[in-house]
């Protein structure tokens, strides 16, 4: 049944930049790295850059990188990365224009599924949203959606990963802001993956190592270096905002971001040649009326779609954002903003589109019902990515001949053969006439989505972590659930 739209279809139909534009951005980014450089405080990183042949000014803490070195390091980074699920069918193959969509974080608030009230996120929410994601076919991977504010800070990272991993067999991603925690997370990943950790890791790290413009964030760069040494996949997440931490123009923002990504890629490859690294550009915006972060505007989708083109041009898998809304309640604005950027990024062929489900209020909040609605939006977008299949059978000349002028196709085998797979079958959308039933409107679908979310939470049982493995995880780490 076409309610589930498979992951990994090839996108690339939408190209906000021409090939010439991509070339100019690339060349300008080279000039940024050669003439301006990036600021790096961390001595270990400065040492790595210097040993690798970059021009390091220890006094100013500026690293300038030649285009030759960048090209060499980009060449060394793999163009294909496999992210594992706890079940193999959920593995993601990141390469070319293959599209995958997942949840995103890290919200502070959650709209309670029972009361409908906004409250602080908890570890239980991470577990429940992972469970929801596990059951929703069109959400392909899981990014820790909110911060568990009921957990002591020392136990936070490991427990967030655990809550997610034990409730979904899809790939799990999260940030980690303390280098000493990397080892614990890797230990958990090793126990879960058995001998397959490097081939299909069940989790990966998102490192927001870049403080735009052009500054390495010291603590997260430590995490980045540690993860790269471990050989686990890492997302280089950089999110400059137009007019605030990057130029006001879309092209200027993309160019600075491209330079930032290239500097990060160089570092990873100097540490561990061939290390799996994902180009994680999240160009964002601020409202020039009040300097609020915004991501529901159309330019957000345009820029994030351009990220696919920029990463594809250097042959690296990418990660970006779509599905964010600036609406504070799940209203009409929320869904049109979501649908718009999800479509843009999906059609541009992004490999890991996070924030694609559940987000509300410019990333401050997640909403249970919205995961179900966004699952539907993603399904439609993925159907668009799949495209129109044209071959002898789908052209249907024989059928047209058989039915002839004035006939109908309802009784043809061809119809029965294709009707279940040719169309996306919505789970929520109403296609009934406006009749005696109360006019549903958006409130109707919100209620429907919420009850669907509740139903999943009450009835779905995700495949758990193997009890033996779980025991060992609990012996070694302080698991609080």
């Amino acid at each position, binding site marked *: 049944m076409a309610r589930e739209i498979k992951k990994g279809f090839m996108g690339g139909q939408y190209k906000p930049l021409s090939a010439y534009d991509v070339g100019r951005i690339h060349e300008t980014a080279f000039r940024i790295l050669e003439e301006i450089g990036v600021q790096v405080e961390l001595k270990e990183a400065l040492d790595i850059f210097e040993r690798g042949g970059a021009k390091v000014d220890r006094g100013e803490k500026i690293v300038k990188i030649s285009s030759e070195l960048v090209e060499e390091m980009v060449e060394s980074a793999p163009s294909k990365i496999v992210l594992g699920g706890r079940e193999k069918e959920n593995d993601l193959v990141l390469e070319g224009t293959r599209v995958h969509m997942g949840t995103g974080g890290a919200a502070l608030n959650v709209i309670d599924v029972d009361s409908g009230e906004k409250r602080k996120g908890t570890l239980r929410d991470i577990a429940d949203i992972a469970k929801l994601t596990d059951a929703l076919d069109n959400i392909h991977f899981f990014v820790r959606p909110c911060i568990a504010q009921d957990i002591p800070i020392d136990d936070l990272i490991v427990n967030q990963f655990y809550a997610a991993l034990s409730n979904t067999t899809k790939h799990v991603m999260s940030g980690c802001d303390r280098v000493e925690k990397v080892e614990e997370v890797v230990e958990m990943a090793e126990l879960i993956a058995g001998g397959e950790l490097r081939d299909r890791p069940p989790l990966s790290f998102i490192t927001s190592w870049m403080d735009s413009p052009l500054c390495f964030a010291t603590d997260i760069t430590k995490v980045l270096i540690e993860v790269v040494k471990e050989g686990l996949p890492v997302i280089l997440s950089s999110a400059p905002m137009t007019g605030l931490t990057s130029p006001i123009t879309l092209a200027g923002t993309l160019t600075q971001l491209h330079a930032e990504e290239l500097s990060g890629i160089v570092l990873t490859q100097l540490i561990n040649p061939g290390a799996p690294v994902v180009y994680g550009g999240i160009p964002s915006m601020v409202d020039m009326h009040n300097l609020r972060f915004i991501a529901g505007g159309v330019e957000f989708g345009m820029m994030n779609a351009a990220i696919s083109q920029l990463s594809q041009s250097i042959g690296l898998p990418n990660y970006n954002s779509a599905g964010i809304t600036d609406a504070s309640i799940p209203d009409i604005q929320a869904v049109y903003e979501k649908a718009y950027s999800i479509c843009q990024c999906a059609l541009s062929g992004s490999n890991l589109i996070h924030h694609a489900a559940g987000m509300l209020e410019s990333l401050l909040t997640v909403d249970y019902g919205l995961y179900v609605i966004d699952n539907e939006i993603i399904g439609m977008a993925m159907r668009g990515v799949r495209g129109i299949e044209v071959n002898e059978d789908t052209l249907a000349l024989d059928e047209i001949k058989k039915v002839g002028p004035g006939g109908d196709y*309802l009784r*043809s*085998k061809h119809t029965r*053969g294709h009707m279940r797979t040719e169309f996306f079958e919505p789970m929520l959308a109403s296609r009934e006439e406006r009749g005696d039933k109360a006019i549903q409107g958006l409130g109707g679908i919100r209620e429907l989505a919420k009850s669907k979310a509740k139903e999943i939470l009450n009835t779905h049982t995700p495949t758990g972590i193997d009890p033996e493995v779980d025991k060992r995880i609990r012996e070694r780490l302080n698991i609080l659930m």
Partner: protein
Amino acid sequence: MIKISEELFAKIKENVIKGRRNEKDEDLEGGSVGEPGVKELIEEALEGGIEPKRLIECINDAMVTVGKKFETGEYFVPDMLASAEAVSVGMDVLEPQLSKGGIKKEKFVVATVEGDIHDIGKNIFAMMLKGAGFDVIDLGTDVSADEIVKTVKNEDAEIVGIGLSALLTTTMENMGVVIEKLREEKLEKEVLVGGVAVSNEYADKICAIYCADAFEGVDKAKELAKKRG
């Protein structure tokens, strides 16, 4: 013998549900070509001396399953139609035996009214009626009130009802004309009306029975047949 007939019934049901009319039909997975379909299986059953009445029960059972699959959304309209078509083929094989046994099928006249050439809805209705075991007299499209009245007169005794279809608001008015002429001729037959333009209010106005779609139409036709006893 009993075991053999049970097996045969199961096969007939299976093939009705799959919508395989005869051995030439493939199933949805593209297989089964060359294996007997409903036509061959009914022929085999009759040769084996199984009573036509029991075969009709078996077909009805299968159609109940098809109806359930349709209600749950597992089956789409074309699946229903394929099953109805398979039943229709089976009924054609059974027909001579039924006549011999003095069993007459309920008749139903269907037509798209004068001025209207849209027949997809009418055809679905006709096919579903056949699938429900009716003998359907399909007069086609753009049928004048006089022709409908003439047909009803000729076949009067066995006719359960008349189904009229129209897509256009302009041609819909001709439904009322048909009913007026039937009453003038003292033909007290129930008339089912359907089609995009037709509303419950309009049906009430012309003293017809409103059907929202072909499936409701078949349900109402069955009710009429039941009432008639």
